[in-house]
């Protein structure tokens, strides 16, 4: 990883943050999802296949990333950029070792990301007085400056700079000739981290469950989806289409029932 690459990636760390200048649709929910983030890192560092392979693991482990009311439990975006870029910097072909590194880097990255987000959130308070002044003066420019201008400058500073420091350090360390990560990591640790990675998908899925399950019987539907894969050998595309069909039919059923009842009573 060159310094230029480090700068570019740090830029994306900012853009992919929650509340960045491009909005959450383009940022947090697109550039910030590991599927895309890892691809971006791959393009910048010239190794898309490895990057995306790592990204898929992180994506699965964090499918259920929801941030109600600004509460960011885990900064997935930061974790992915730092995790994938850090691992790629030391990549010498042994994917197991690289994956292990990725888990380590992403854990650190995610933690820093949360800290930075909280700092950002606190510093943004300083903007409110300016926005209020803008309102008093009926001055739309001032309000725009407070929200889009100052808000983004604070965001940029709190996220780009720490990311750049980490990445640059990594870049320097990674370029040291003679370091062979594969040899440094013992066999048992690789197994542990591999096992850990495989189970981490349960994290994302379990958290998704928490958001979706409201009543006990709904586990029956989860089990149904499970069986479609386990016993009917469907792939995810097929499950999604089938689930969509059932959702449509269910919607039609409850809508028709209501109409009939409404009609029958009125």
């Amino acid at each position, binding site marked *: 990883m060159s310094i230029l690459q480090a700068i570019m990636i740090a830029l994306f760390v900012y853009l992919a943050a929650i509340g960045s200048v491009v909005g959450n649709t383009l940022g947090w929910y697109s550039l910030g999802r590991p599927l895309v983030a890892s691809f971006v890192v791959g393009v910048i560092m010239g190794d898309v296949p490895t990057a995306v392979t790592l990204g898929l693991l992180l994506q699965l482990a964090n499918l259920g990333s929801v941030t109600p009311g600004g509460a960011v439990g885990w900064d997935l975006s930061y974790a992915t950029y730092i995790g994938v870029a850090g691992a790629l910097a030391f990549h010498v072909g042994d994917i197991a070792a690289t994956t292990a590194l990725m888990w380590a880097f992403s854990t650190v990255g995610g933690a820093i990301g949360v800290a930075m987000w909280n700092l950002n959130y606190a510093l943004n308070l300083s903007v409110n007085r300016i926005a209020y002044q803008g309102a008093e003066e009926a001055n739309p420019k001032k309000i725009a400056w407070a929200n889009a201008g100052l*808000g983004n400058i604070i965001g940029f500073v709190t996220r780009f700079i720490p990311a750049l420091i980490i990445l640059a350090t990594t870049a320097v360390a990674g370029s040291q000739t003679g370091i062979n990560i594969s040899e440094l990591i013992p066999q048992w640790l690789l197994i542990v981290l591999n096992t850990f990675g495989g189970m981490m998908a349960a994290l994302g899925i379990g958290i998704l469950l928490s958001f979706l399950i409201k009543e006990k019987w709904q586990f029956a539907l989860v089990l149904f989806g499970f069986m479609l894969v386990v016993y009917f050998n469907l792939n995810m595309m097929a499950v999604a289409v089938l689930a969509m069909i059932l959702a449509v039919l269910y919607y039609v059923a409850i809508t028709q029932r209501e109409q009939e009842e409404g009609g029958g009573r009125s």
Partner: protein
Amino acid sequence: MKKISPHTLKKSWKIWFFWHGSSQQGENLLGNAMAHTMSPIIEELYDSKEEKTEAYKRSLTLFNTEQQLGAIAPGIICGTEEAVANEQIAPEVADSIKVALIGPTSAIGDSLWVATIIPLLLTLCMTITNMGGPFLYLGPVLYMVGYPLLTAQMSWRLWQKGYHLGIEGINQFMKSGQIEKVTKAMTILGLIVVGALAASFISASVPVTITPPGGEMAAVNLDDLINRIFPKLLPLCLAYAVYWLYSKQKKSPLFIMGVILMLALAFTGLGYLTGAY
């Protein structure tokens, strides 16, 4: 009768779309962003400085919503602002509508959009990515391009829909069974997909080999045994365990990551002990 021009409405939506989250903080949440968003509309609807200041101040109050599916909320607020400007409703009514919108649009947006649709789209693109070869590129690019495009379209439509709702429309919307029904249907979709995800992507296995004494029977792999009775039972239990820890025990994701790490250590240890590695 004052009327927001289509051009101004679009301008307002654009500000929202890009800068809804730029200055969020604990005091008024998306309040600043909302004032920014309303600025073209306020400038168009009002003439005197007093009226404008009045309107800006109201737009600065605490506001929050999920910012994509929830775009209907600021859309509605554009409509109520117009009604206030035409003196059809009192500013207090507009204010209370605004406050009432926060809860439902946040909740529906987060659970329907962020926790159902986004994981679904990601999963489909991951499935494509997983096919390897050119699909490795197709998957991420599809999401990176498709997601923002479709979302922007939907958001803009909801914005317009919100703006055109009118007071009765709003009342209906607030208590509408329609939303509830769509949510129910989408939840079915989400639950089935999540179950399939658990089966497709979680990999967990106990690397234990049992050799029955006497040597009559062949050594049995514990995992094989479990899978023949119910395939992938372990991943299923793992997903349930995470759900239980997160949802019932209120543990943080970080804590759960720790638990998973301990499990990984334990399983690896077991594997070494029973000679699987």
